[in-house]
C-alpha cells in the first residue's frame, strides 16, 4: 500500500546502492526532482535503465551515481549528445560506465513483460542489424506454432522505479494523463516504486472511465513535489522548458561548468525549488 513520505524519505526507502533503477518518462513527466534527490543522497553503483536517457541521466552519470546504463536512445532531443555520458563511457570520468543498448521496441516490450511477470519479451525485431552482435541479451526464439524466428530480450524487473504523475488522491491512488510512455509498466515491474506528484487531491473527480490509474496497492511511496518534472513537463500544469534543454549542451560540455551547475542547482537546493515552475505556469494561466 502506498505511503506518503517526504521526497528525501521516499528516495531513501526506494533506492539503495547497487540497485537497478528505472526513472521513466517519455519526454513527458520525467522525475527530475526525485533524480536530484538520488544525487544528493550520493547513491552509488546504480544500473540506470531508461528508454530515452536525457538530461536527468546525464546529471546522475556525471555525479558518479551509475556504473551501467541500459537504454535505447541516449541524447538531448533535438539538441545533441549527452556530454557527461560520453565522458563516462569514453574516459571513465567520474566513474567507468558500461552500456547495454537496445531498440525502443525491445525496451517497451521488456517493460511490459516485467509488468506481466514474464521472464522475457518476444517480438519481431532487430532484423538484419548489428545490435545483436554487441548485446548478448538479444536472442532468437522459434514460435512453436508457426516456426517463425522471433526475437527475445529479458524482461526488465528493476529494484526501483521512479516516475512523476499529475495527481494522487488521499487513498494513495495515482492518476497519469497525456504521454504515458512506459511509466505504468515500470512501476508494475519494479520491486519498489516511488511516484512524485504535482498535487494531492481528496478524490480525482470526473474523469474518463478508462483513465490511467495506478491503484494504491501497486505503488510504494508517494511524495508531493509540485514542479517535480521540470524542465520536462506535466500536461495540464506546465510546459516543457525547451530553452533549458538547449542551454544544457553548453553547461554539460566541460566538467567544471557541469560541477558548478550541479552544486548551485542540485546539491545546495531541495525539492521545494521545483515548486516555482508549477506556480509560474498557474499564475500565467490566471
Amino acid at each position, binding site marked *: 500500500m502506498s505511503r506518503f513520505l517526504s521526497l528525501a524519505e521516499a528516495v531513501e526507502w526506494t533506492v539503495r546502492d547497487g540497485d537497478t533503477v528505472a526513472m521513466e518518462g*517519455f*519526454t*513527458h513527466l520525467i522525475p527530475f526532482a526525485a533524480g536530484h534527490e538520488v544525487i544528493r543522497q550520493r547513491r552509488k553503483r546504480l544500473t540506470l535503465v531508461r*528508454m*530515452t536517457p536525457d538530461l536527468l541521466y546525464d546529471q546522475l552519470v556525471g555525479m558518479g551515481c551509475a556504473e551501467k546504463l541500459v*537504454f*535505447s*536512445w*541516449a*541524447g538531448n*532531443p*533535438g*539538441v545533441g*549528445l549527452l556530454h557527461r555520458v*560520453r565522458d563516462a*563511457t*569514453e574516459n571513465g570520468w567520474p566513474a567507468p560506465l558500461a552500456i547495454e*543498448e537496445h*531498440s*525502443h*521496441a525491445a525496451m*517497451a*516490450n521488456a*517493460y*511490459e513483460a516485467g509488468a506481466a511477470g514474464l521472464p522475457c519479451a518476444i*517480438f*519481431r*525485431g*532487430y*532484423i*538484419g*542489424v*548489428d*545490435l545483436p552482435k*554487441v548485446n548478448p541479451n538479444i536472442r532468437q526464439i522459434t514460435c512453436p506454432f508457426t516456426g*517463425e*524466428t522471433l526475437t527475445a530480450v529479458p524482461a526488465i524487473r528493476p529494484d526501483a522505479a521512479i516516475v512523476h504523475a499529475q495527481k494522487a488522491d488521499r487513498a494513495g491512488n495515482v492518476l497519469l494523463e*497525456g*504521454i*504515458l*510512455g*512506459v511509466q*505504468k*509498466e515500470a512501476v508494475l515491474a519494479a520491486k519498489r516504486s516511488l511516484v512524485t506528484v504535482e498535487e494531492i487531491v481528496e478524490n480525482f473527480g470526473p474523469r474518463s472511465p478508462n483513465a*490511467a490509474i495506478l491503484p494504491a496497492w501497486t505503488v510504494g511511496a508517494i511524495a508531493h513535489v509540485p514542479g517535480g518534472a521540470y524542465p520536462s*513537463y506535466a*500536461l495540464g500544469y506546465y*510546459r*516543457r*522548458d*525547451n*530553452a*533549458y*534543454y*538547449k542551454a544544457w549542451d553548453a553547461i554539460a560540455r566541460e566538467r567544471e561548468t557541469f560541477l558548478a551547475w550541479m552544486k548551485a542547482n542540485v546539491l545546495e537546493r531541495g525539492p521545494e525549488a521545483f515548486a516555482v515552475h508549477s506556480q509560474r505556469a498557474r499564475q500565467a494561466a490566471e
Partner: protein
Amino acid sequence: MTMDYTPTEMMTIAAARALRNDDVCFVGIGMPSAAANLARLTHAPDIVLIYESGTLGTKPSVLPLSIGDGELCETALTTVSVPEMFRYWLQGGRITVGFLGGAQIDRFANLNTTVIGPYDKPKVRLPGGGGAPEIAVSCGEIFIIMTQSKRSFVPKLDFVTSLGHGEGSNHRARLNVNSRGPTKLVTDLAIFEPDPDSKEMTVVSMHPGVTRAALQDNTGWPLRYAATVAETPPPTARELEVLRALQARTARAHAAA
C-alpha cells in the same frame, strides 16, 4: 519568376511531396517532422501523423523539439502508451510509411545512427537506434531524408542500425521481411529510388542547378542513374511560404522559456 530557396528547403519540400493524403506516417524528429507537417499543411491535409511517444493523428501547429512535446499530445486524436505504440500500431502493420534519417547511409539505404568508428571505441557516439530498427521493417515502406556528403554517404556503414535493402536484390525477402523498405531517398541534391532488381539506390531526379559531378563529389560510392533522370520541380511560392511560416512559429515557440 525565380525564387530564392536553400538546398535544405528544397529537400524538405521534395520529401513532403512524396507523402500522400491517405498515408499513415510514422514520423521522426527533425527533418522528417518538418517534411511530414509541411505535407499536412499543403497537399495532404488528411494524412495521419504518428510519433513514437504514442500520439496518433497529431496536428501540431509548431514542430516539436522532442518526440514527446506537449503540443503533440494536445493536438492528437488519441495518445497510447509506448508499448502499445510499438506492439499494436507499428509491429501490427498499421502504418503505411515510416520516415527516417541517419548519420550514415550506404547504397542499399541501410542506416547508421549508432556509432562512427568501432562500437567499443567509437570516434563519435551517436544517440542510437531508438525506434528505427523496427520502423525499418514494420512500416509498409520507408522514406529517408538526409543531407548528402561523402562523410554520410559511405561505401560501408560503421554499424548497421536499421535495415534498408541489406546486401541488395532480394535480401529483405530472404530475411523474411515482407515490407518494401526504402522506396525513396530525398537529399539536398537529388531524389533516389531503388533499382527494381539490384535494389541499389538510383538517382531518379536532380534538384535544379545540381550537376552530376557535384552529386558524385558528395557520394562515397559510384552513383547509378535511372534511364531518364528528371529535374525536381523547384519549390512553389506556396510551399516555401507554408514551410517558412511553420519554422518561424517553431523558432518563436522554442525560444520562449
